[in-house]
């Protein structure tokens, strides 16, 4: 059985990139059009804002949405947008190129005016001449490409550029973490072709998640990130493990916690009961006089650790009572109440 990983990926060298790890497989042909993004609106500044206003706005938004410090639910996606907007607006040439695209509604499909790129940088784009289409691009690709944004990656470039790192979150069940699993990864990633033109390509592969996963653990797949250029190393893919909540077990590191309800007489008299574990049921001996809140440890019955050994399973005792009792049961409880000398609140009198 395999799971599908979803999430975002980021690159410590080149900023956050498009997050959709899983996208529609079917992409309609839509040459020389792309969706407009209003970078000024994203940054919350006027179109006439000066460089200092833009920098201030970026700092404020970055502090709020940076994925390493933010707890906002959409932090990663928002920060990616903010980073993309700032990359363009802080650079006078890129900003001028962006402004020349005109003003459109966010999400509106548009096409750059004819000859739009002629006055900027290297003019790597040739929409409509058969060499290139915008089908695989988004606005950030367009702007970074037109300014020769990927230094040295173009024809004749010499500088070694490492490939981007991607970061994807795989949501897996506790059972999958216990025995290891496979996830299908479907990534839309930016790449450059042999002539240095940026494009987005679909990469699909399976990744094996070996035993030893727990919540928040990371798996590194060396060289499975973006392609390096001019002899630069390929980027890596980081798979962040997120465990789905389980109906019985709670997780802390590689240890598991299970609520263990006992009937009052089981707690008093002791018993041997069957307890579920991820590796199948086991017999657990409950000693006489077991109290609610006590933890019974089942050594090595937690999650396997990546290096060696396993975590433990802790069964937390709860004394459960029936909501309603029959006549005979009630009579027995009453008899017990009459003869028992047990006072669970004896310490109240001593401590008060």
């Amino acid at each position: 059985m395999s799971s599908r990983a979803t999430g975002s990926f980021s690159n410590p060298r080149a900023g956050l990139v498009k997050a959709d790890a899983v996208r529609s497989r079917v992409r309609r042909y839509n040459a020389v059009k792309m969706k407009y993004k209003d970078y000024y609106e994203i940054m919350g500044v006027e179109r006439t804002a000066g460089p200092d206003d833009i920098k201030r706005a970026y700092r404020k938004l970055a502090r709020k949405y940076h994925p390493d410090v933010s707890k906002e639910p959409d932090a990663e996606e928002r920060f990616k947008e903010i980073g993309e907007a700032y990359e363009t607006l802080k650079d006078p040439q890129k900003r001028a190129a962006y402004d020349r695209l005109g003003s459109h509604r966010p999400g509106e499909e548009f096409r750059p005016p004819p000859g739009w790129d002629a006055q900027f940088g290297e003019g790597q784009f040739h929409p409509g001449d058969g060499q290139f289409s915008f089908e695989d691009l988004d606005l950030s690709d367009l702007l970074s490409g037109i300014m020769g944004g990927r230094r040295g990656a173009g024809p004749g470039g010499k500088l070694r550029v490492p490939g981007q790192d991607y970061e994807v979150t795989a949501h897996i069940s506790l059972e999958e973490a216990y025995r290891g699993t496979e996830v299908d990864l479907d990534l839309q990633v930016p790449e450059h072709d042999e002539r240095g033109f940026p494009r987005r390509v679909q990469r699909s592969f399976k990744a094996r998640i070996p035993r030893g996963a727990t919540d928040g653990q990371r798996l590194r797949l060396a060289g499975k990130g973006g392609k390096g250029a001019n002899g630069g190393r390929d980027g890596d893919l980081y798979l962040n493990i997120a465990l789905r909540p389980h109906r019985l077990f709670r997780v802390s590191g590689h240890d598991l916690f299970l609520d263990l309800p006992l009937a009052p007489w089981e707690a008093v008299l002791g018993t041997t009961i069957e307890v579920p574990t991820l590796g199948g049921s086991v017999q657990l001996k409950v000693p006489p006089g077991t109290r609610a809140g006590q933890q019974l440890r089942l050594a090595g019955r937690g999650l396997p650790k990546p290096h060696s050994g396993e975590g433990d399973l802790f069964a937390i005792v709860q004394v459960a009572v029936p909501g309603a009792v029959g006549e005979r049961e009630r009579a027995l409880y009453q008899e017990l109440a009459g003869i028992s000398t047990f006072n669970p609140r004896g310490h109240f009198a001593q401590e008060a």
Partner: protein
Amino acid sequence: MKSEQGRWLHEHYEFSLVELCELSGLSEEELRGLADCGAIAPADPGARDWTFGADLLVVARSASRLRRDFDLDPQGLAVAVALLERVRDLEEEVRDLRARIPGGVL
């Protein structure tokens, strides 16, 4: 389709200083600065060639992003990394305590 095998980032295998720099995007000077103030500790600070537990790659990558995105100076970066580590430790403690609460909070 062939299945790709990854490696866990855990403390039982190590990266050299050069490897950690290459994988995180930090410069050697930046990484040494973080090590000097204890924000990222080498396995044996007395060793001639420093090595780092692979789990520290997560911290180093986070430091690299913070340095770049906030344009932080070395001192500011060290403080930010140390505080984030403290937050992560506390979050782990909260997760552990929640897991121990009967009838627990997931």
